């Protein structure tokens, strides 16, 4: 495997411009993240302190093994929803190491409206458990929630992937033999009571933790019975009378300590044997990534430069280097793990589509995980390409990708438009993890393109109606379409909706992938096989 030869100069004007641009974007990202993670109402923080509770991030830090990484997922979920009323969707999700074992950690955030679950909170929790199921990751729940956010109850209760899905996922995890631990720091009411109820182990903090299907107010309203929180669902009752909870703790710190001891009892997982060598840092500085991604989504750049700053030793074994050059395919190592990388270097043509499909077949044959680095505006369209069968070839690529049995990871580095998103393992295609960069944009088509198309349609409509083409109207339409699109194209919009597993700093991609790949190895490979390729 040879080292990629970088062709860019860090002193060039373009590099400097792009670097400044991307660092501004990064600063904006970090500011939004900081706000989402830490900016809270003082009265909520005061209330927490009065209750003797720790903040959720403090609980997580105490839970994690010292000197180990924590890959937080979807830190900016719900950032463009509910008028900012639910930062991070009132939930912290991530992968960390506890007592030497990889686990999925999911924590409620009681500093936001008592930890109430918004619809996106539920989506985030379900996604966390889906990841746990797909990767066979044990789960630790840090429960401290007031329950569903009643004002939006219709969006969080009835449908297939709403509230109930959490408990369904928990049950399936348990059936799979994947362990769950719940640490009850606050109230687990109604549905929420099922989280510790469905966990294999749970710990409850005396005085603040409580588990009940109905809290005291509901009980009084329903039957007239008057009963205190402690008596109805407190630690001592559940750990000595009902047996619904396993371990009482006198403090949050003790609950976490017990939790760590419980995890220490779990067997260490048997992972499937992915090819692995000794890791090596990239030969090129990942910091240079900021100077490589252009300041305009329409400007092209060579994805090899990105790969060089992400993989071990910057070494890359390129497959079919002279064919289908708009899709780079090749093998590399990330944190030692052997992976097959597909990276866009332009529009997808027939040859690049075929190359991609074939390469994915090779990776499946070799049990090599797939990493997709997206920067795609779409498949080539036009008469010549249709005649050559671009539809068939794109379909073959999608077929190979969908049916791959190796784990798939996607990083959306720049643009992710249209069917190109599909071929390159978009959200719908069961990639184990999907990250995007703050500069990333996603849509059916680019903003300008959409605006142009809609304008075109409008103009034709006007013509058909036998009217005059109103330039001003077209211009206004163009601008309106464009700005609406821009908003919905941005990485913030898509991450808000949980269409990905989080925006990450480009420089963090290597660590994120390393941890993701390691997590994915806990699940055995699926059965190989493909559907019908339309040749």
């Amino acid at each position, binding site marked *: 495997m040879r080292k990629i030869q970088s062709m860019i100069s860090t002193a060039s004007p373009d590099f400097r411009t792009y670097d400044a641009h991307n660092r501004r974007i990064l600063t904006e990202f970090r500011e939004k993240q900081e706000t989402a993670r830490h900016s809270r109402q003082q009265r909520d923080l005061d209330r927490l302190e009065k209750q003797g509770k720790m903040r959720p991030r403090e609980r997580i830090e105490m839970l994690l093994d010292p000197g*180990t990484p924590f890959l937080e997922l979807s830190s900016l979920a719900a950032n463009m929803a509910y008028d900012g009323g639910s930062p991070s969707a009132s939930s912290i999700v991530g992968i960390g190491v506890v*007592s*030497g074992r990889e686990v999925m950690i999911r924590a409620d955030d009681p500093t936001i409206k008592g930890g109430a679950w918004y619809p996106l909170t539920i989506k985030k929790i379900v996604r966390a458990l889906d990841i746990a199921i797909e990767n066979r990751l044990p789960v630790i729940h840090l429960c401290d929630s007031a329950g569903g956010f009643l004002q939006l109850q219709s969006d969080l209760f009835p449908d297939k992937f709403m509230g109930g899905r959490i408990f369904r996922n928990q049950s399936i995890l348990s059936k799979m033999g994947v362990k769950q631990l719940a640490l009850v720091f606050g109230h687990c009411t109604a549905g929420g009571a099922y989280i510790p109820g469905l966990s294999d182990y749970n710990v409850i903090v005396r005085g603040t933790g409580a588990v009940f299907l109905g809290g005291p107010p509901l009980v009084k309203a329903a039957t007239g019975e008057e009963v205190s929180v402690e008596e109805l669902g407190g630690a001592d009752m559940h750990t000595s009378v009902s047996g619904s909870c396993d371990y009482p703790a006198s403090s949050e710190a003790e609950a976490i300590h017990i939790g760590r001891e419980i995890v220490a009892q779990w067997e260490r997982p048997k992972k499937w044997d992915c090819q692995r060598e000794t890791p090596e840092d990239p030969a090129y500085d990942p910091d240079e990534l900021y100077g490589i991604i252009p300041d305009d989504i329409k400007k092209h750049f060579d994805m090899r430069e990105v790969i060089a700053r992400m993989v071990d030793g910057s070494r890359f074994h390129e497959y079919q280097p002279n064919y289908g050059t708009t899709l780079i395919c090749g093998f590399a190592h990330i944190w030692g793990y052997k992976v097959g990388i597909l990276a866009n270097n332009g529009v997808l043509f027939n040859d690049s589509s075929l190359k991609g499909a074939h390469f994915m077949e090779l990776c499946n044959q070799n049990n090599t995980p797939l990493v997709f680095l997206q920067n795609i505006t779409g498949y080539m369209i036009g008469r010549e390409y249709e005649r050559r069968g671009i539809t068939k070839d794109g379909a073959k690529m999608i077929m190979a990708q969908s049916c791959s049995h190796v784990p798939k990871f996607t990083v959306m580095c720049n643009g992710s438009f249209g069917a190109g998103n599909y071929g390159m393992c978009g959200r719908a295609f069961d990639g184990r993890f999907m990250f995007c960069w703050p500069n990333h944009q996603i849509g059916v088509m680019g903003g300008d393109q959409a605006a142009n198309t809609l304008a075109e349609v409008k103009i034709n409509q006007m013509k058909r109606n036998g009217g005059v083409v109103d330039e001003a109207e077209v211009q206004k339409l163009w601008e309106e379409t464009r700005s609406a699109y821009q908003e919905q194209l941005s990485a913030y919009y898509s991450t808000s909706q949980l269409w990905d597993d989080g925006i*990450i*700093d480009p420089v963090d991609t290597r*660590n994120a992938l390393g941890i993701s790949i390691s997590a994915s190895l806990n699940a055995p490979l699926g059965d190989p096989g493909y559907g019908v390729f339309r040749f």
Partner: protein
Amino acid sequence: MSDPLFNKVLVANRGEIACRIMRTLTDMGISTVAIHHAAESKARHVQMADKAVEICGETPVAAHLDMGQIIEIARKLEVDAIHPGYGFLSENANFAAAVAEAGMTFIGPDAETIALMGDKISARNFAEKHNVAVAPSVMPTDDLEDFIEKAADIGYPLLIKAAAGGGGKGMSIVREAGALVEAARIASSEAQRYFGDGRVYAETFVDHPRHIEVQILGDGKGGAIHLFERECSVQRRFQKIIEEAPAANLSSELRDEICTSATRLAAAAHYKNAGTVEYILGADGRFFFLEMNTRLQVEHPVTEMITGIDLVRAQIEIAAGKGLPLPQSEVRTSGHAIECRICAENPEQDFMPETGVVRHLGVPEAEWLRFENALTHGQKITADFDPMLAKLVAHGPDRDAAIERSIAALGELALLGVKTNIDYLARLINHDAFRTAELHTGFIAQHRDDLAPKALNETERAQILAAAFLGFRQTRDLIVGTPEPHAAIGGWRN
């Protein structure tokens, strides 16, 4: 090899001395019998012996003091002789008599000699009669007023001692009249407890005295030789913890005077077998008879190392009627030897006895080194027996060399699982006052502050903490049990 002097010898003791005695017995081709309490069935002296028999008693010590039981066992096994070691029944005249009556040889003096020297008062009188100086004293009487008056005559400070005692038990220093009554009462109670005889007496206490003792061997017919002296001044609670041979800074005249007085005493008593005459030596060169120990002493190895004579072998030969091993004129010394008594105690807490389990034992080896012990890995150190665990004896061409070697050996010696005085002894031997042999029985009290351990510096502390941190299972697991690539990525957050 000629016929062994005895066929079978029972060692009525335990621990390091039993092992040491059996070593010589085996060298001499004599079959060995060990006795042990149930609590010690895996002890080293039991493993070493050709035959081992369990003895019963309310406590392990009581078992070792059960004369009848021991003699019965010896008789049943057709043992020829019994070696009593030190402590336990070694200075019990009744035992010596009973052994003889049972038709076996007691490897030690006659019962009469034991009785004579065992009673401190009669021993003193005997010494005085044979021109061996004794310190002024007051005999005990029922009239306490009288006792106090006479004691005041001697002057203070004076020493209260148990008449039937030894080894530092039943002793205390009284510096003023007001403390005399209480001291006498406690000493009497202790003496009654250990020696079955509550009589105490008082004698002049020499300030800053040196404890000098002489090893003698007697043939029982009036013939006796000395094997020169030992200095045992470094003591705590009246018990020796460092002994050396020869004594430093002794003029040859004084040495000769002291040693020949010991021989004179032994000969006069028709002393048979090994014994030690103990003296107090003042700074002015005056020395007083303290007591005579009618047994092999703990610190006998230092004499063996400078004279080249195996004292246990000599004991067995004398007991078998072979007489003394060599004439006085042929007794020579070479070099200097120092013995450190390794004890299970905490020097930083006033030498409070300690208990524990031997978790790790690392013993240095050298041809100039003897490490007399009966330690085994996993052995429980309990309050059942004396806290002395072992003796580390180093020999060198001169005193300085012996000191350097002792320090090196103590540094290498590792006994983990019970607190010991090993590091303390190393500091003590390294002390200037020890190196220049400014020794006296108050040495440890005088240099208490100097001998306290130095405070650790930051780096040393960090090393110790890290070493321990890497030993605790839960913290070590946290270090080595982290999966990859998480361990390599470290504390990253996104």
